[in-house]
């Protein structure tokens, strides 16, 4: 593409033009590059959260152990949960959504490419804000207690790593009033509340983008019921985000004003209600569970048909079950609060509502089994993780049903039984699904295959380590191991199984080392994948690997579900696929045209402004944390100015420079409207 030196009259900066190097990544609006950045950031935090978990596990491997101080332990479990949910699983899903959604629906990018870059940079700087608490945060004894000499043990008391104790330690759930201004003063929990607020903003922006992308950017003929299931689950998840994030945003603002400006929404001694926080948190927090699990469910719904060489069994049932789970997910939040003293009527109602979620979940599991039944199953690492997903997620789903049995939940809640349950769902479910997707779609990113032998080793180590880690937590919890417990007494009899758990955690760590080695090795030297390495079914494989910048060289016309498969195969009278005579020709032509487009292709232009806005947002939040000082007030003004100026710059900058000649769809118009909202 030739660059013109001419600067359009409306623009402040010269439009960025780098195609390689740091600036190209900072200014990119390419959904694939944004997806890659999300992916690496998510994996980085997976490792960080994992190291936090290993430290916790060392502490718990002995009764009355004193490896970590109590303060360090509490901070680590808070940050482990916060990291894994908001800085690992959600951005990991976002990586797949960003990279794959346009490819799956046959588009050249998402609906609002600059907005997409904004989501990423807000996430990036939000994550930095959150983790800067390790450097800047403070965690002090309850208000008034400072006066009592010697209340805090010297050096944090028995144990080491006490320097970690100055990070958020109110739990990822931030229950009030413990995480409020009286019982956890200091700035650490403000970093937590502000960090979540910023990360929520990022996801909210993404959700709008994905919804509009699915509804407006599908290729010709790609009816909604011809969309791959992952595209469907992305859309459903985006709606969940859209409706649930405003709730946590409000709740976090209430906490922030409680902590910073004395609003006392949740302070009981002033007439506030600590249980209100739980309602608000879980009204977001339970849909969040489905925000975590639905995208990986979509991934395995792509992987299983590919490696069983059969269409997804009951496609429409799987799609509607996903939507039903999302819908019901908004009506079950109080099952997190069965022991909080809500009335028996409320407990019964939420218990019953929770049970109903098992029905669409069951539909999904049985349809996956139906997909595998009668197939020709190839045990690639992607497929192993997908099959592992079914088995492990089934355990997590069934232990979820035992939570809906309200009286049983009175025994289970706040014990390790719950920790076991949600790790079977989030790790055995979501993380297995995400790894399945990584092995499956790695060629789209690198043009190569991840090593299969190492991949199988990775799977089996993960599978064994995972079950050693989390299965014993079921019976540990029911036999008296409460959650968030720094120490347990020897009389509680919990030591033996806790050692098994800790050993399992280290096996998982080993599995991740194998995976990272495989990634590093295969990215440069792996087997070259070619265009269609899995003999796949969906249209993302109709373009070469690695994916060209413009995704598809020609506009597609979709005629059926699994369109790509039907281009290659027809069915004999028994319903078995027979490869078309011209299949190889079709593939060769697609690969050639993908790499050598016949006509110039218009792509949205890169922009500085998403990065700049992303940079400005956390400055405002730093300012709020330190608002009592002049520096804090200055930071608020500075951050606000950066955001405002960048938004104006964004507003008057065309989505694509005229010389790109990009006028074949109405992307620009749509983007302008959204910019106004953010300006």
């Amino acid at each position, binding site marked *: 593409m030739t660059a013109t030196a001419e600067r359009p009259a409306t623009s402040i900066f010269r439009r960025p033009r780098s195609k390689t190097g740091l600036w190209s990544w900072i200014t990119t609006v390419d959904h694939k590059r944004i997806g890659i950045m999300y992916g690496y950031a998510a994996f980085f935090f997976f490792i960080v959260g994992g190291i936090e978990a290993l430290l916790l596990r060392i502490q718990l491997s002995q009764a009355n152990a004193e490896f970590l101080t109590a303060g360090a332990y509490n901070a680590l479990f808070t940050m482990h949960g916060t990291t894994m949910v908001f800085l690992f699983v959600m951005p990991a899903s976002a990586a797949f959504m960003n990279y794959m959604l346009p490819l799956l629906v046959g588009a050249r990018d998402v609906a609002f490419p600059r907005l997409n870059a904004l989501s990423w940079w807000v996430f990036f700087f939000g994550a930095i804000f959150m983790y800067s608490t390790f450097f800047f945060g403070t965690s002090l004894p309850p208000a008034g207690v400072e006066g009592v000499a010697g209340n805090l*043990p010297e050096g944090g008391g028995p144990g080491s790593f006490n320097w970690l104790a100055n990070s958020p330690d109110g739990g990822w759930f931030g*229950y009030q009033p413990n995480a409020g201004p009286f019982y956890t003063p200091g700035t650490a929990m403000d970093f937590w509340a502000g960090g979540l607020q910023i990360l929520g903003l990022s996801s909210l922006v993404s959700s709008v983008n994905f919804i509009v992308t699915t509804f407006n950017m599908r290729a010709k003929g790609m009816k909604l019921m011809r969309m791959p299931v992952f595209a469907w689950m992305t859309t459903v998840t985006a709606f969940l985000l859209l409706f649930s994030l405003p709730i946590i945003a409000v709740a976090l603002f209430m906490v922030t004003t409680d902590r910073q400006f004395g609003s006392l929404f949740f302070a009981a001694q002033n007439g506030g209600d600590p249980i209100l926080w739980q309602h608000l948190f879980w009204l977001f927090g339970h849909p969040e569970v489905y925000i975590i699990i639905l995208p990986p469910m979509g991934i395995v719904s792509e992987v299983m048909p590919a490696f069983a060489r059969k269409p997804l069994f009951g496609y429409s049932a799987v799609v509607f079950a996903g939507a039903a789970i999302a819908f019901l997910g908004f009506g079950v939040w109080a099952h997190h609060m069965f022991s909080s003293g809500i009335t028996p009527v409320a407990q019964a109602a939420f218990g019953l509502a929770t049970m109903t979620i098992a029905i669409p979940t069951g539909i999904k599991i*049985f349809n996956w089994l139906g997909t595998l039944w009668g197939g020709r199953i190839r045990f690639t690492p992607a497929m192993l993780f997908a099959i592992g997903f079914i088995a492990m997620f089934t355990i997590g789903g069934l232990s979820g049903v035992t939570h809906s049995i309200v*009286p049983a939940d*009175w025994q289970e809640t706040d014990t390790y039984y719950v920790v076991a349950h949600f790790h079977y769902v989030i790790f055995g479910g979501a993380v297995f699904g995400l790894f399945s997707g990584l092995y499956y779609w790695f060629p789209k990113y690198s043009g190569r295959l991840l090593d299969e032998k190492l991949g199988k080793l990775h799977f089996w180590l993960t599978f064994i380590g995972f079950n050693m880690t989390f299965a014993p937590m079921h019976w540990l919890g029911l036999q008296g191991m409460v959650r968030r417990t720094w120490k347990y007494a020897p*009389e509680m009899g919990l030591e033996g199984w806790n050692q098994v758990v800790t050993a399992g955690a280290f096996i998982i760590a080993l599995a991740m080392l194998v995976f990272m080695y495989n990634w590093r090795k295969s990215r440069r030297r792996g087997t070259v994948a070619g265009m269609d390495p899995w003999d796949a079914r969906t249209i993302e494989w109709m373009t070469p690997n690695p994916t060209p910048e413009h995704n598809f060289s020609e506009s597609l016309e979709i005629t059926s579900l699994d369109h790509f498969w039907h281009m290659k195969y027809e069915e004999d009278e028994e319903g078995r696929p027979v490869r078309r005579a011209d299949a190889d020709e079709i593939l060769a032509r697609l690969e050639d045209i993908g790499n050598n487009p016949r006509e110039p292709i218009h792509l949205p232009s890169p922009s500085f402004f998403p990065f700049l806005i992303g940079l400005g947002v956390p400055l405002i939040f730093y300012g709020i944390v330190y608002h009592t000082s002049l520096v804090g007030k200055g930071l608020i003004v500075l951050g606000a100015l950066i955001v405002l100026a960048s938004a104006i710059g964004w507003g008057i900058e065309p989505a694509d420079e005229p010389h790109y000649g990009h006028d074949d769809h109405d992307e620009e118009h749509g983007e302008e409207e959204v910019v106004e909202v953010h300006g």
Partner: protein
Amino acid sequence: MAKSGRLGRVLTLLGLALLLGACSLVEIEDAALTSWKPAGPNAERIDDLFWMVFNIAAGVFAFVVVALIVIVVRFRDRSGAKEPKQLHGNARLEVVWTVIPALILATIAVPTVQSVFDLTGCDPDSMRIQLTGHQWWFEVQYPDYGIDTANVVVIPAGEEACLEMTSDDVLHNFWAPALHGKRYLVPGQFTELRLESYEPGEFWAHCAEYCGLSHSLMRARVLALAPADFQAWVEAQQQPAVLPAEGTQAWEGYQVFVNKGCTQCHSYRVDGEGGNIVPADAFNGPDLTHFASRNVFAGAVLPEYGESREDALRRWLADPPSVKPGSYMPNLALTAEEIDNLIVFLEESR
């Protein structure tokens, strides 16, 4: 087909055998806080419900996993295998696997809802015990008897006692798994939990909601006594303490107690001159009048396993926050002699 049917049956039996074996393997003997040894009607009802649902869930799991194993073995890719038929679904099957789970859930929903209502709240005539959560100990008061004690909830066996619970600071969650499930202690609100034990016995309890720095060190005991013993206990608790004779070591300990700041937080009901000690401080600690009648202290964390109460007290009085991080009881910089005297005084406070 017949072959795979046999395979399925063998795998199912194997799975069930494994499950039964696993259940006995994972049961921890003498787990002090287990929910698997219900000792009263409420916990027993929950236990029955849990195992009923567990067995159904285990059956569903066995079905799914056996099906999964059969499928991946039978339909694995083999050289020369035919291409699979391109089945898109089956409406009848969809109905079946929607309706059957719904029926199973409806079956377990009935006893669930029944027991929610049956197990909530208290009999209006049952004995009231006020349980107040503090960071990090439980205050136990008997309004009918004028008793104020800590960390050990004493109830008569074979009768229902009603805990009326609230919190003085953050959320706590009282859990005595042998007797009932959990219930929050909420600042500014009152919750109820009924406790009943079939037989006399001592049961562990724990705060289950994260409540700050030393959440893991907030435990309690429930002591169920035979009705006659319970009456004797009530009468003993109602007695004020008898001050130690002047010149004894206990008397020296009492002087430490009065003069070194203990009385800013701890109350002590005295018979005779000197009068009752009732601190007005915001950080009230446990009443120590009958300290030695309780087998545990400091949130039922001390004495630790195998430790004598004297040793535990010595450790605790020397530096409470090093035993319980964040403890509101500060290090009072007592000398070894003062600690020894205090221990004798406290040990005589029966």
